[in-house]
C-alpha cells in the first residue's frame, strides 16, 4: 500500500468514526466509546512498554490521577477543557516524579517499583476519597454520550499519532536503540535515561488524558477504582495481544479484546472470567507475535500461495 493510500484510508476511517454519533444508536456508541478508551489506554502503555521497552505495572496511577483530577475540577464548575488539561498536567507531573527514581531500576525491579507506587496511590486515594462520585439528577437528565465518544476518539487518535511518530522521528529511533540495548545506546551517544524519562512522561500524559475522558464519561464511580491495577493489566494485555511496539496492533486488539470480553460476560455469566483467561492464553500461544503479526503472516501466506499457483 502506498503512503498516500494509507493516509487516505486513515482519514476515511477517522471520518467514519467521527460520524458514528450521527449514524448509530446509543448502544453502538457506548461500545465504540469503550473500544476507543481502551485504544487510548493501551496505546499510552505501548508507547512506554512497546516502543520504550519499559514494562511498567503502575500505569493505572496516571490513568487514575487524570480521572480524579478531571472529574473533581469538572464537577466543581470548571470548563471541561481546563479540567482535562489539569488532569493531564497532574499525570505528567506525577510521571516526572515517579519516573525519575523508578527508571534508575531495571527489568523486574522497575516493574515492581512502579506497581508499588501505583498501589500506594490507590490506597491513599481510597482513604482520602472513600465516597462515590455520582452525577446529580439534573446532570444525568441532560447526559449526552456523543461528546464523550468524540473525546475518546480524540484521545485514541492522539495516542496512536504519538505511537506512529515514534516510528518516524529521531527520538523514536533513539528510543528503539535504548529498548534493544542500553549499553549500545550509550556507546553510540544516545542518553538512555533521558530517553526513558521522556517516554515515561509522554506515556503518563496520554494515560492522564485517557483517565480524564473516563472521569468525564462515567455517571458514577469510586475514585479508588480508577487506580485499580486492572487498568494497567488491561492495557498491557491488549498491547501484547495486538503486538508490542506496533502502531496498529493495540487498536485492533482493543476492539477484539472488548468484543470478546463482553460477549463472554453476556453468555457465560460467572464463568466468563475463567473462560476468558483460558481463551486468552490459547490466543497468545497461537499468535505469539500478536494479532498484527498473525495478520501479516496470513497475508504473506496468501501472497506466497498466489505466486505458487
Amino acid at each position, binding site marked *: 500500500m502506498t503512503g498516500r493510500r494509507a493516509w487516505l484510508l486513515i482519514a476515511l476511517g477517522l471520518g467514519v468514526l467521527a460520524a458514528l454519533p450521527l449514524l448509530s444508536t446509543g448502544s453502538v456508541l457506548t461500545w465504540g466509546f469503550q473500544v476507543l478508551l481502551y485504544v487510548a489506554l493501551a496505546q499510552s502503555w505501548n508507547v512506554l512498554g512497546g516502543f520504550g521497552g519499559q514494562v511498567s505495572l503502575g500505569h493505572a496511577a496516571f490513568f487514575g490521577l487524570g480521572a480524579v483530577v478531571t472529574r473533581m475540577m469538572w464537577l466543581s464548575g470548571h470548563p471541561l477543557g481546563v479540567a482535562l488539561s489539569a488532569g493531564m498536567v497532574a499525570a505528567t507531573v506525577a510521571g516526572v516524579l515517579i519516573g525519575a527514581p523508578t527508571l534508575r531500576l531495571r527489568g523486574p525491579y522497575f516493574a515492581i517499583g512502579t506497581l508499588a507506587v501505583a498501589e500506594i496511590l490507590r490506597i491513599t486515594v*481510597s482513604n482520602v476519597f472513600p465516597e462515590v462520585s*455520582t452525577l446529580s439528577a439534573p446532570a444525568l437528565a441532560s447526559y449526552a454520550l456523543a461528546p464523550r465518544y468524540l473525546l475518546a476518539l480524540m484521545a485514541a487518535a492522539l495516542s496512536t499519532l504519538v505511537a506512529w511518530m515514534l516510528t518516524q522521528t529521531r527520538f523514536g529511533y533513539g528510543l528503539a536503540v535504548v529498548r534493544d540495548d542500553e549499553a549500545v545506546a550509550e556507546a553510540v551517544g544516545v542518553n538512555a535515561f533521558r530517553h526513558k524519562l521522556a517516554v515515561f512522561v509522554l506515556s503518563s500524559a496520554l494515560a492522564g488524558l485517557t483517565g480524564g475522558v473516563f472521569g468525564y464519561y462515567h455517571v458514577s464511580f469510586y475514585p479508588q477504582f480508577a487506580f*485499580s491495577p486492572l487498568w494497567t493489566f488491561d492495557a498491557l494485555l491488549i498491547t501484547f495481544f495486538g503486538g508490542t511496539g506496533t502502531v496498529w496492533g493495540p487498536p485492533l486488539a482493543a476492539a477484539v479484546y472488548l468484543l470478546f470480553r463482553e*460477549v463472554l460476560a453476556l453468555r457465560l455469566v460467572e464463568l466468563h472470567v475463567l473462560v476468558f483467561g483460558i481463551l486468552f492464553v490459547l490466543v497468545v500461544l497461537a499468535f505469539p507475535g500478536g494479532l498484527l503479526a498473525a495478520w501479516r503472516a496470513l497475508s504473506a501466506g496468501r501472497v506466497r500461495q498466489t505466486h505458487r499457483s
Partner: protein
Amino acid sequence: MTENIWAEVQGMRRRAVVILIAAVMLSGLPQRGVGALPATVKLGAVIPLTGRFAGGGGQVRAGYEFAVVDVNARGGVRVGDRQIPLELVVLDDESDPTKTVSRLETLVAQQGVAAYLGGFGSDLHAAAAAVAEKNRIPYCGVAFALHAIHQQGFKFLFSPFIKSPDIAIGTYRFLNASVPSEQRPRSVAIFAERTDWGRELARLWTTRSAEFGYRVVVAEEYSVGARDFSDIILRAKAAGAEAVFSVPTPPDGLAIIRQMKELDFSPKAIVMIRAADAVSWTQALGKDGDYVVLAPGWHHAFTYPGVAEINAKHQQRFGRPADVLVGPSYACVQIVVNAIERAGSLDPVAIRDAMATTDLQTVEGPVRFRSDGTGIVPFVLVQWQGGVQQLVWPQGAGATAFQYPAPPWRGR
C-alpha cells in the same frame, strides 16, 4: 519435512483458535424479535457472582430465579391483553462498581431490558443507580442500605429494603426490647468502614445513641481490605466497649471476628451487618460466628404468603430453607411484575410511574415506596445461633429468643 509438518500444525492451531473465537462472538449477538411486543419481557440483573460479594450475590440471584420461574408458571406477565413470559438476563460484575456500570450499559445495548434488578452491596448499588437514572430505566435493588444515594433526587431508583436511618434506630430499639435494662450493653464501639455506607451508619448510630440510653465510646474507621484490625479492636477493649457495631464486607468481617478472638475481646453483643449475611460466615468461623446479629431484611421464618413455597424450592435446590436475601430479591421481581401489569406497557417510564405507586403484599410483607424510592418495609434482625440464622426481631412472627450476652471466646 519436519518443519513443513510443524508449520502445518501451527496453521491448523491458528485456524482452530480463529474459528473458536468467531463461534463465541457470533453466539453472543443479540437476537431480537419482530412486532410491537417482544417474545419475552426481559429483566436485566447485574450481580456480583465472583469477588468479595459473591456469597451475597448468589442469594440475590437465587431469589430472582425462583420468582421468574413462579411468574412463568402462572403464564408470564400480563401486558395489556397479552401474557408474555419473563426472561431474566444475569451478568456478573465481579464485585467491581466500574464493571457494574459497564455491564448495565451492556444490558441496555444488547438486551433491551424493561427494568434493572440490582446486585449486592451498597457501593455497587450506588454506582448502578446513576446508570438507571441516565438510561431512564426503573431499578429495583435490595441488599442495599445506603440512604445517601436516595437523597440525590433520582426518580428511577426503588429499594424495598431497610435503610441506614431505620437500622440505626432499629438496633437500639431491639436491644432495649430484648435485654433487661441493667444488662444492656450501654458502651458501644463502632468499627466504621471507610466507605460512604460505613460512614453514614457510624454517624447515625452515634447521633441516635443517647436518646436510647447508649454511649459510643469508640468510633474508629478502617480501610476496606485492611489486614490488621488489632488497633481498633484494642481501643474498643481498652474503652470497655460492651457492644460492637459494624458493616464490613465478608472478608473484613471474618478477619475482625478472628482478631477479636485472638486479642480476647469479647463484647456482649456484636452487630455485623452484611458480612454475616452469607452462609459462608458459619462455614468459615464455626462456633465463633455464633451470637452475631445481622440485618438482612428478611428471614425464612416469615409467614407472609409465598414464603413457604420459596423455602420448599430452596430446600430442594440447596438443602436448607431460603437464605436471608432470597426473599427481598424475590419481592423485587414481584414488585416489577406488578408494576408492568398495572402500567399495561413495557415502556420503562410507565413502569417507573407504576412502581412509585406500589402497594403490594410480597414475600417480605406489604411494600410501599416513599417519594425518594426507599421502601416502607419491616425491620428484621437475625442472629447466628448454633450455625443457623434465627429470626430475633420483630418479636412474634416466628422469632426466637435473642441469645445474650455472647459468652467469652474461650467459653464456647
